[in-house]
């Protein structure tokens, strides 16, 4: 039975806002879209310019170097070789490119917001509920408004991915700075350090492991969203899965899914220990 009160027109209101932005600002978002699409293409083409085995060796070496663990390097090598063997190299590269770009944007926006939230209590109280909202709203919902702004394709995917993946970067940056021991902040104060000196000489260095954990989470969320974003025309492994769904090819779907799993594990292992202190 319907409620006797008339329905609140929340949906209409949101639509009106989105329409307004689409009509008045679409020329900007479309320009951004074109620019970014070019950027994505360049990145993907660059990675595909080299033979697959060269890139696989480069990635494996990078994984080894970043973690200082040969095991991670070997796992990366085997995993990527399997992906190549499954003839999924091209979509994998495009997925990696999307994740990379979305992560860079999310961190570039999220880090300053996180810092500001840590330093200004008032801002913190405003931002945290918004982050809760961003994280709990079903990810698919972000896909819808992305389309009128950026059109079908990878840019829309990146837009919704950034929104979905940014909260942990903000949250953990904020947390990391707040967790810097009070007596260290006091020590910096006692030597006459100003806000910026405290931030760069004390708070950010000490918050680095926590911030890196946030970036790690952002990367993982980016990956999951990039896959979902295949529904609005992002290519890559998600696109392969989406194709398999539409054609009911469970085998192909599983293979593409396996590719996602491998990429997720590689990215996770590579970035997990990034923030921890290296000591001789």
């Amino acid at each position, binding site marked *: 039975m319907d409620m006797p009160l008339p329905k609140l027109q929340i949906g209409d209101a949101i639509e009106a806002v989105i329409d307004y932005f689409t009509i008045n600002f679409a020329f900007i978002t479309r320009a951004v879209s074109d620019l970014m699409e070019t950027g994505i293409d360049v990145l993907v083409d660059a990675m595909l310019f080299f033979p697959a085995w060269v890139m696989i060796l480069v990635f494996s070496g990078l994984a080894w170097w970043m973690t200082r663990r040969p095991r991670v390097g070997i796992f990366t090598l085997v995993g990527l070789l399997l992906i190549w063997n499954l003839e999924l190299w091209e979509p994998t590269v495009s997925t990696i490119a999307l994740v990379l770009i979305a992560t860079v944007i999310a961190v570039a926006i999220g880090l300053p917001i996180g810092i500001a939230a840590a330093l200004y209590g008032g801002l913190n109280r405003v931002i945290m509920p918004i982050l809760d909202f961003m994280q709990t709203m079903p990810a698919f919902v972000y896909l819808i408004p992305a389309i009128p702004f950026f059109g079908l394709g990878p840019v829309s995917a990146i837009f919704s991915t950034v929104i979905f993946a940014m909260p942990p970067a903000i949250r953990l940056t904020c947390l990391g700075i707040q967790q810097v*021991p009070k*007596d*260290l902040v*006091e*020590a*910096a*104060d*006692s*030597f*006459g*350090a*100003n806000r910026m*000196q405290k931030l760069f*000489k*004390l708070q950010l*260095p*000490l918050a680095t492991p926590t911030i890196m954990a946030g970036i790690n989470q952002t990367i993982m969320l980016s990956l999951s969203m990039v896959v979902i974003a295949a529904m609005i025309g992002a290519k890559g492994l998600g696109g392969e899965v989406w194709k398999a769904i539409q054609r009911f090819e469970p085998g192909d779907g599983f293979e593409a899914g396996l590719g996602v799993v491998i990429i997720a594990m590689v990215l996770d292992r590579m970035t997990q220990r990034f923030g921890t*202190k290296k*000591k001789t």
Partner: protein
Amino acid sequence: MPPQIKVENVYKVFGRDAGRAVRMIEEGLGKEEIMQKTRLAVGVSDASFEVEKGELLVVMGLSGSGKSTLLRCINRLIEPTAGKIYIDDVDITQLSEKELLALRAKKFGMVFQRFALLPHRTVLQNTEFGLEIQRVPVAEREQKARNALELVGLKGWEDNYPEQLSGGMQQRVGLARALAIDPDILLMDEAFSALDPLIRREMQDELLALQSRVHKTILFITHDLDEALKIGDRIVMMKDGRIVQIGTPEEILTEPATPYVEKFVEDVNLAKVLTAGSIMHKASAVTFPKDGPKTALHKMKEIGISNILVVDTDRRLIGQVSADGAIQLARKNVPSLESIIQRDVPTVHPEERINEVFAEEKFPVAVVDEKNRLKGLIIRGAVLAALAEKRSS
């Protein structure tokens, strides 16, 4: 010359509408009452004192006495609610934020209870911190930091990380970091309290040795009276945010201003600070070599002692005779004490400290001056009695 630090009627009340609490303090209400009535916490109330250049002033009180708050008011890490603080005649409560940061960077070196070293920096980089804040050129700050580390005995540890060092060594880094900026004033907040007793004493000795070379104005916070007595030129005693007494260690011990201080002082091993001269008894009973054993015995009996000191006519100490020996002489009818004088009497100079006297163990101990003239004597039982007497007077 103006005092280096002058604190005038400083109050610190935590919470909103702090002025109300200040008025209540002025009306004579205590910390507890104000807390009950207004929910405001009084940190410091009506503190006034001065610190001279080159002086080591200890602020001593139990936790919650407001000593750390008072210290932080002096470089405005905590804003005082009311009152004035002068550093070299400049009222720092009036400084702008920018001036304040410059003042902290130039004038103050602070040392913290829990060291507060930056874990991501090496010992050298930690020591350079203050200079870095002042934007001192790299080469110069490295040189100054190395000098400071050498001063605290950490040469060779420059490239280690704090966590690789023991507590005592970490605090040396803390001290070097403060000294590296060559501040006029060192603020030391329970600087040695986190160290184990042996290291703590060692650090106290080293601080004193260091101070005799660098002559900084030092404000040292502690809850340990032994520490205060050992290192302080003067001591500020605090209780419930108020200063209850200011004085030299000797004054605090011998003339406690309030029952609170007195009670505090009771727990202290007084022997550590009192000198032989200040507790000796007047040697009213002495005997002379020409005296016969019966005279000597009579004098001993009179004041109830078993040994008596023998002096010459200029009161120069010759030795002592025991009652036992005198009795035997008396039985044999020997008229002179000469044959039984023991010449190895333990002696002390009046300036000597009591703990060293106690180590002698043989009593009585004669107190003699440079010319071996007898000034007084210390008897085992009388030592403690004298101390107790002094305290209650």
